[in-house]
Structure formats: C-alpha cells, structure tokens
C-alpha cells in the first residue's frame, strides 16, 4: 500500500460523497423497511420522508465538517454511480485513536453481492492507514446474526455483550460489541492484493 493507492475506488463500488439531489429519494424509500433501521440504531425505527432525508443529509455534512470526529461515505456502484448504501466512522476519539463503524447496503436485493465487503475493506484501510486509528468498534444486535457473521469474517472479535439490552417484537436481545485492532487487520492483510491499477 502506498500513497498512490486509491482509497475510495474498489472493483465493484466506490466510496463517494452524498448526492443531495438524487440520494434523498432513494434512502427515504429504504427507510420504509424498518429492519434496516433496527440493524443500525437503537432508537425506535421510523421511516423518513424525502424532506426529512434531505435535512438528515445536511445534518450529516455539518457534523462531518464541524466535529471532525465523523467520516461519512455513500457506497456507489462503480459503473453507474447509483447509491447502494453508506459506511461511516463516527465517535472518533483522537487521543485514543479509536472510532465506531456503521455500514449498510440499503436495498435487500443488493445484499450478498460483495458490495458490503468491498466497502468495509476500503473503509478499514481508510481508518487504519489514513485516520491512523488503533482500533475500530462496531455494535450489533443479537437479532442481526448476519451482521455478526459479516464482521467476524473480517476479523472483528466479539468483546462485550450487554445482556438483554434490546427489546424487539416482544423478545429481548443482547447488544454485541465487536472490535478490530490495527495490528490484527494489518496481519490479516499482509497478503493484500489490491494492486495499483484502478
């Protein structure tokens, strides 16, 4: 990996900024599937109108700009630049070099195609090699086993279980914290074959 390696361009997808014209309508549609919201946040899942989505995007860019503790990217198809999802590092504590990660592929139909994996790989490289973070955390609900599998495949280690922290559909679920240290990621990437032609 060197200075001329492209941080944002993958083979299938790219990490890109928010398109305030096109994206609100797409993501507003995704929010009507509450399982997506439940996978990402603890607060009550609520769909958002296009207007609300526009405001949310403005707030995100404000947060990125002003707090300097948050890095938000859209995930877009490499060919047609269509919005597939988002990935972000938030809650960065610079003195400890740590941050929290969130990733989502919005439309269930687009999952399982490798977009999330590629986006995560790019984001981790950004976090460890550009932000110089020492560790990245992720919090996932026990009611989302696919997410636990996804992150553990990338080397995240389950570290904390807040027992019965969530109530959904009348059942309790643990909240699971996973963590990945830079050294672990570097070791597993020592055979990285990203190449330089993008």
């Amino acid at each position, binding site marked *: 990996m060197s200075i001329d390696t492209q941080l944002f361009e993958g083979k299938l997808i790219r990490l890109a900024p928010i398109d305030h014209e096109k994206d609100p309508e797409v993501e507003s549609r995704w929010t009507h599937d509450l399982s997506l919201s439940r996978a990402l946040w*603890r*607060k*009550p899942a609520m769909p958002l109108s296009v207007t609300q989505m526009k405001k949310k995007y403005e707030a995100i860019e404000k947060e990125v700009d002003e707090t300097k503790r948050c890095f938000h990217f859209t995930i877009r198809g490499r060919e047609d630049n269509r919005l597939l999802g988002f990935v972000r590092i938030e809650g960065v*504590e610079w*003195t*400890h*070099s*740590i941050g929290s990660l969130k990733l989502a592929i919005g439309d269930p139909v687009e999952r399982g195609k490798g977009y999330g994996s590629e986006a995560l790989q790019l984001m981790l490289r950004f976090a460890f090699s550009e932000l110089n973070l*020492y*560790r990245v*955390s992720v919090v996932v609900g026990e009611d989302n086993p696919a997410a636990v599998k996804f992150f553990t495949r990338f080397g995240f*280690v*389950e*570290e*904390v*279980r*807040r*027992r*019965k*922290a*969530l*109530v959904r559909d009348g059942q*309790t679920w643990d909240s699971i*914290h996973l*963590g990945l*240290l830079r050294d672990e990621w570097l070791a597993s990437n020592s055979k990285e074959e990203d190449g330089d032609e993008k």
Partner: protein
Amino acid sequence: MDTNLLHGSLVRLAVEEPKINAEVYALWNRDSEFMRLLDAEPAYPPSVKKLTELIQKDQEKDPASFYLFAIRTLEGDKLVGYIGLDGEAFPHGELFVGIAIGEREAWGKGYGTDAMKVILRYAFQELNLRRVSLDTFEYNPRAIRSYEKAGFVHEGRAREFLHREGRRWDLIFMGILREEWLAKDTS
C-alpha cells in the same frame, strides 16, 4: 409509595442551582487524576461558566434525558460528587450510569456505593428501566470493586480502547438487569 426515593443511608441525590454545582465541579476538574479516572475525553479543566451552561442546558430539557444529580452527604450536607443516568431509555429501557466522587477525602467512605444504590432504585422504580449499564477503565480497580458490590455483572471489555501514559488500557463493560437488582434489593 416511598417518598424518600432519592435518600440513601449516607447520601442524598439532589438537583441544584447550576452555578452552585459548577463552582465545585470546576475545582474537582482541575484534579487530573479525577478527570482521567472519570472520562475518556482528554483531561482539560472547563471554566465555571462552561460547566454552569452545561448543567443548565441539561436541566432545561423537558422531559429530562440526562438525569444528573449532585451527591450530598446526609450528615453535614457536603457536596461530594455527582451521579447521572445517560442515554436513550426508550424503547429498550436501558441507560448508562456514571458516578464521580470529586472530594478526595470522601473517597473510600462508602458514599459512592450508597449513591449507586439510590440511583439504581430510581432507575428501576421510577424510570422503570429494564437494565442499567456502565463502562469503566481497567486502571480504576476501586470503582470496579464498588460496582461489583453494587451488583453489576462483568459483560466484556473493549480491548486497548484507551491510550494514556504511553500504554493502552481496556474499557470494561458491566450491567445489572432488573431481575438481578430485585433479587439483590433487601431494603
């Protein structure tokens, strides 16, 4: 119905004029050991003005979202620390508790444990929470022991989370469920 919900056997929890608390808190915050035991944010002493505004802003929220209390001794009415419940209680019924005993001479006298007893009762009987969580630093064994005594169960550690004094330290998570608190609560 217990009217002394905020009274323990050694301390009581109170909500006071922001400026009164801020003046004392500001003094404690100049004790860097105190700051580093309490917070992951870089130790930095805030001004009285800044603290007053923070406390005021929190008191103005209606309904409250951050339940912050001053800790006063029952005997002598001395302000020894603060304790609060933070997070979003709805809809899962969980909050994080944080406690700080700022007066060094008040350390090791059971005030913290007593305040924690009171806040847990408030959390489970008034806020109707299902669980209370906390996180604490590996280098604060006194606090960890106190939490274990209060009934908190170890739930894991975020490895090498903090970077201080040239080495890394784990962030320890603990939690107490309503059922566990009910089983423990003898009063």
